[in-house]
């Protein structure tokens, strides 16, 4: 187990190194090179020369890459020139990361809480109108562009339900401890702040949860269908076990493995979806910074955020793989 974890972590380092090389090449290949990219429209010959020297672009390319790597390892990715001009990229990431975690976790919880039970029910009632309509519903869920759904929620439902449609919290007095607005309120006992932050989370999280929900629903349904056909379920039934015991001990436990894998892979959908959803709701997280970064071509911020998204994505999937052992004793034994 430990050796497996270490091997995967070493793989992650390899992936990040290759990625850094690709991103470095990306920055170099930008139209006009990194100097134009950083200076944008305001470039004068003098400022270009100064920045070229400052960035070490007059040195051999290999040395440039190692310097870039060295700075990156110490967390220095440069200064934002579009998203929050003047702030360092790392500062922007640290400031905004809790917001995206909060939003993604909330969305994932919605997707799991509705997806798994619905998937189970649909499988049990295979071929009924309930099954068919929820399968079609889940296919529509995947087919709706996330940002369009977000606009519909924002414009139609925020008015109908009286929910806030922009930002993470109203301008109320709230103490900041962790950067997770819902958690801060609980820690400091400012319940109104937590409640307010939760209200702001509902609509964006609903929009963001559409794809993970649909995918989790369908995988659960398929996995349960597979397990229901197994001999051991029939054996359990003929032994006269109650439906509840069969469901909990035999069906769900065996069906959960593919579902857990899918949940891990949905981190990717959540991270990409956050770019679109946060932009629609003006939700100040990493996703919005990425959207603004693409729009304003803020390369230092983009570089850091893309690398961070990759690390998070790979780490979450590692955790998911490790959790197999908890769910499936057969894997633990190996």
């Amino acid at each position, binding site marked *: 187990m430990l050796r497996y974890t270490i091997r995967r972590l070493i793989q992650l380092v390899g*992936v990040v190194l290759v990625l850094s090389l690709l991103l470095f090449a990306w920055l170099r290949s930008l139209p006009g090179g990194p100097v134009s990219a950083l200076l944008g429209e305001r470039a004068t010959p003098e400022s270009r020369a100064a920045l070229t020297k400052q960035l070490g672009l007059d040195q051999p390319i290999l040395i440039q890459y190692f310097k870039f790597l060295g700075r990156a390892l110490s967390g220095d990715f440069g200064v934002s020139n579009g998203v929050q001009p003047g702030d360092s990229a790392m500062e922007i990431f640290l400031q905004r990361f809790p917001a995206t975690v909060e939003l993604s976790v909330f969305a994932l919880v919605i997707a799991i809480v509705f997806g798994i039970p619905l998937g189970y029910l649909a499988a049990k009632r295979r071929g009924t109108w309930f099954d068919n309509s929820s399968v079609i519903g889940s296919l529509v869920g995947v*087919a709706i*562009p996330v940002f369009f759904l977000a*606009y519909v929620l924002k414009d139609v439902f925020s008015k109908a339900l009286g929910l806030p449609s922009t930002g993470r919290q109203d301008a109320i007095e709230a103490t900041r401890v962790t950067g997770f607005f819902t958690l801060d309120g609980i820690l400091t006992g400012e319940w109104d702040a937590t409640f307010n932050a939760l209200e702001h989370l509902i609509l964006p999280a609903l929009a963001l949860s559409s794809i993970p929900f649909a995918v989790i629903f369908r995988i659960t349904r398929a996995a349960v269908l597979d397990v229901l056909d197994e001999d051991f379920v029939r054996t359990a039934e003929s032994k006269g076990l109650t439906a509840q015991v069969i469901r909990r001990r035999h069906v769900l436990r065996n069906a959960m493995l593919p579902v857990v894998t899918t949940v891990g892979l949905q981190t*990717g959908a959540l991270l*990409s979806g956050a770019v679109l959803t946060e932009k629609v709701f003006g939700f100040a997280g990493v996703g919005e910074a990425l959207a603004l970064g*693409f729009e304003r071509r803020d390369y230092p911020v983009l570089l850091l955020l893309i690398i961070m*998204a990759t690390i998070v994505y790979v780490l979450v999937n590692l955790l998911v793989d490790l959790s197999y052992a908890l769910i499936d004793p057969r894997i633990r034994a190996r």
Partner: protein
Amino acid sequence: MALGVTKKEKIDDLAESAGVSLAASAWKRLRRSPVFLIGAGITAVFVVLSILSPWLAPHDPGDPMLITQVIKARNEIPAPQPGHPLGGDLQGRDFLSRMLVGSQQTLIVGVGATLIGLTGGLILGTLAGAIGGWVDSVVMRLVDVMLSLPALLLAFSIAAMFARPSQFSVIIAISIVQIPVFARLLRGSMLAQRGSDHVLAATSLGVKRGAIIFRHMLPNSLGPVIVQSTLVLATAIIEAAALSFLGLGNPNDRVPEWGQMLGDVQKVFDTHPHLAVWPAVCIIIVALGFTLMGETLREALDPKNRR
């Protein structure tokens, strides 16, 4: 055999499974599946519409013929009127014509991205699966790196590499993301075949390696790839819309594309929601059609479901 099956049904089952190829039995089941027929129907209508759209469109989609009816100060755009059943857009262009011609560009983006992704995946997957060894290792590590980035985020990043976004850059960005998926699929089925009897037979007959790969292994690996292509067509159309929304899409909207029209949603949703809802609904229906077709194809081609 389950209880309650009559002898005749048993014999029918046997007759059905004996000597019928997987494709033939799959087609037999597909013909009877209403879900497949709906998916295929939507796809057929979409393809025919997009091919005929230049002749169907009543006006030039890029011609601001109703510009006099656009009043910026009062947020007014041309209302539906004789000759323009859906009215005009923000630039006074006939909206029906734009929707119709948009279908063609949407098909081009979808098919273009899928074809390029498929070709890249075919090359990489064949190299890795058929040759093996260090080629396999190098290709698969590359694939791993690409898959360790969230897919859509990778597409955004690739699109941002282009100085001037265009329809070409959109297609490239979406297609590159699909390459690792296709490569993995193909490598998997190629590997499974390397040890199979028909490849062994061909090898012992002295057939050249190239011929074995292209005549025996590749055709037998295409099933899952075809299914995946159908599903990718749907994602490609949706992703093109996301790229436009982030300002990474094709800025030239004289010849429109549905994703690009939907990408303008933030400009129009408050005041003229129908300008976003029409392309959105069309994208959803077409993506649904491709997905229904792909999913039922996948089920039908799965030997587990064959009886």
